[in-house]
């Protein structure tokens, strides 16, 4: 299997990695908790505090997925996951482009001039199908 290693590897390399990830997880939890107790939201603002807490959570999650869930050694699965993940990011990006432009034109007081060029054009210049 892709995550098969020699007994020596498990003893000398993998078990220390488990302790390392455990340490990252504990440290991440303590950092987030301490930051909240120190009132980072009041100092940095709600948005920055959210970005900070989520960044720590993403680091923790990555460590779990990469080492505990063996993605580091499942090369093909990693390729498949990254490809699928990229399509999701591409999809979100495309949706943001279209939805974002709609949101802009829907703002209160905003004059929608999307179709003005059609209204201003001379009807006589439009070719008659008949």
């Amino acid at each position: 299997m892709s995550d098969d290693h020699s007994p020596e590897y498990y003893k000398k390399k993998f078990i220390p990695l488990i302790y390392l990830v455990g340490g990252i997880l504990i440290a991440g939890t303590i950092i987030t908790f301490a930051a909240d107790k120190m009132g980072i939201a009041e100092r940095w603002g709600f948005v920055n505090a959210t970005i900070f807490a989520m960044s720590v959570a993403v680091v923790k999650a990555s460590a779990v997925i990469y080492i505990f869930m063996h993605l580091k050694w499942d090369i093909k699965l990693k390729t498949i996951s990254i490809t699928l993940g990229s399509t999701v990011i591409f999809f979100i990006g495309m949706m943001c482009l279209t939805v974002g432009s709609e949101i802009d034109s829907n703002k209160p007081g905003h004059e929608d001039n999307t179709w003005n060029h059609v209204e201003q054009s001379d009807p006589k210049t439009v070719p008659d199908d008949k």
Partner: protein
Amino acid sequence: MEIPYYDKERPDTGLYNGKAGIWLFLASEVMLFGALFSAYVLLRVGAEPGTWSMGLMNQWVGAFNTLILIASSATIVMAWVCLKLNDWKGFRKWKWATVIFAFTFLVVKWSYEWPAKFTHYDVTFVTDQSASKVYTDVLGPEFSETQSEIWQKRFDPLKKDQGSNPAAQVKLKDKPLDGHIVGYIDSNGAEHKVGAAWGMPFWSHAFAWRHDRKNIEKEKDKSIRYDKDGRPVYKEGHFRDTFRDRDIKAIIFAPAHGTWDRNEKQASSGAVKYAEAKHDAGHAHSDGHGHTITIAREDISRLSSYEPAHSTFFATYYTLTGLHALHVLGGILVMLYHLLPVSRRVYEKNPVQYTNRIEITGLFWHFVDLVWIFLFPILYLL
């Protein structure tokens, strides 16, 4: 006939069947929890001032449970590594450790954290005058500043609207007083202890009390029928209302969570344990709920425990943590199965197959841990 790729990896994915299956299952789980996370975030960001009472979360308990799950995630990998090293005893040791951690998580969640909320109540008032009367009784005539401070900590702990003074946007009557119901006065004026009210002490505290003036006003048919045991029989259009159904005139309320002035005897910051409800007299002295106030039915606009129906916050909180806890329970059951003697026989017959099973369980368990890694900051800290 031999099933292909049963315990050998497929050349295209590099995964054996079971592992490919669990990854697909986890992908569907990501979508399920992702939808719930998105719903939570949207509701949180769009919440009106005074509607998102996440300041009530016990962060220490949340942090403790996070560490417990992290430990279980490490121990389950250790169990798998032991199998790879053909160490059956080591495997059982780490697997039992995982089960114990998981069980501890559920015990904290279901026997402490949730019941503490179910026995905690919010009271809002009909008018600003009635609210003012109660708050004066609780905090003294100069209650405004202290009360605003409490409100701020509870509803806007991060002060995300700092500068706009959200507390000022909410009327006094809509700012809830929180605490425990320790007794009530019936229509004859007789006083009762709530612990002995309706059988089981816990259920006399949790959920039992409900009142919402809006619902009463909405009812078309106010006639409630009662069955032979005296319990109300509801039909369409009826809403449960403890005051009406039990003919109660007033509640005896013990405000909690720092509502009392710090210089006086402060209420406990932890929640009352339901078992103590049996001995209300002693309970009043043991957990800091020494002061009680009587609030008349006419003054109460809404009375609700911290149950899912309390608010959007608690509805989403219980949905997210409840679904996660069910996953934890499912994981425990599977892990216990792997510790049964029958599993030993599977291991002896085909060690690779059994090791793969443990790996798959581990992947599921890490996902449960991952969900909590995001749930903890979102529900308890932000």
